[in-house]
């Protein structure tokens, strides 16, 4: 009986020690700071399209290395709401531009950050003039979707950014219709 009690005692001590170890080690915490994204800037303005971008910080505020396995941007402008433009969007790692829209998996060391550019291309659909099309523009929400992993199994989550109609109008120099 004493042996059994001893064994149970050892198991309890080991479990407590493991839990304390895990608590001390912590995990990666990826803070995607969409609330603090930079102001949108115009990358390219043509007769029928405009491309704008903003930079978002992905900060690892945790105590372990984290991995961004994938990242992409989902634009959310249904034609039921506004069918005057076509929207395409992508995520691009700062300092590693790619033309293929591929997002290469990247590590974020503890207490470090990476920056991701959200690029949005808006093309006129019913006219050849993007400025004319944007007169009736509405607010454009985009979701920044990312897959990440660290000490917990991988997960996918998303954060939202809104490109305001007033902002895009100001960037291309048009006045919105009332």
């Amino acid at each position, binding site marked *: 009986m004493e042996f059994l009690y001893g064994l149970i005692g050892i198991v309890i001590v080991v479990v407590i020690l*493991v839990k304390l*170890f*895990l608590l001390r*080690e912590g995990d990666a915490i990826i803070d995607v700071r969409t609330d603090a994204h930079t102001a949108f800037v115009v990358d390219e303005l043509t007769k029928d399209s405009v491309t704008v971008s903003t930079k978002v910080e992905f900060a690892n505020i945790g105590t*372990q*290395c984290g*991995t961004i*396995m*994938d990242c992409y941007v989902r634009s959310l402008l249904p034609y039921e709401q506004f069918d005057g433009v076509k929207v395409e969007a992508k995520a691009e790692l700062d300092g590693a531009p790619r033309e293929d829209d*591929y997002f*290469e*998996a*990247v*590590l974020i060391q*503890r207490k470090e950050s990476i920056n991701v550019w959200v690029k949005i291309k808006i093309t006129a659909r019913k006219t050849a003039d993007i400025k004319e099309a944007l007169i009736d523009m509405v607010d454009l929400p985009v979701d920044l979707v990312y897959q990440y*992993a*660290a*000490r*917990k*199994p*991988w997960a996918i989550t998303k954060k939202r950014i809104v490109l305001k109609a007033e902002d895009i109008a100001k960037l291309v120099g048009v006045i919105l219709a009332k």
Partner: protein
Amino acid sequence: MANLEIIPVPTRILTDKDDIIDIVEKYAGTKIGKNDVISVAESVVAITQGRIVRPEDLTISRVAQLLCRFIPDYGSLASPHGMQSLMDIEGKWRVTFALILGFLAKVIGKNGVFYKFGGEQAALIDDVTGTMPPFDKYIVYGPKDPQTVVKKLQERLGCFGAVIADVNDLKRSRIVGVTDGVDGDKVAHLLIDNPFGNASQKTPIVIIKNFKQYQG
């Protein structure tokens, strides 16, 4: 005496649809001589053998989630999917036992015990980000039958020898497979500066010219 020379050979991206022997012959066949050693990157050999798995395709156990916490966060087994991929190949209980043994050995100051008893894949698995796109989103196992692969390479190319090497930018250089008569340690030393390049540089083949004379 002929000069020793290390020549990286660029290729297109290789996939599981490629045969590594055919590919090496295609890209390096005309450049290699009878005194040379052909060296192929370990992860690329594994990719051509289809030894890859997506984290999304694994069923991650609670044991894997727990055990990965005991691996330093820069290791390929530090993630639940990395650890699970090892368990799927080497067995859950073997890996668990090896980790406990490794922990106890570390307490008395002995390193490397986990990798000794955890199965050969323990040191060979590359987690996501470990290799070039599109395989940066995959876990890449070590190659299967490396000795057979290097023997076939040597026979096909008619060179002095062939090796499969696991080299990275952190000055780690290890020979996974080597033909008879080639000093693997000397090859590993020559490859220490990683002439294969990093993830996005497509140079999975390296020719070591005149290695026979260098080895003596």
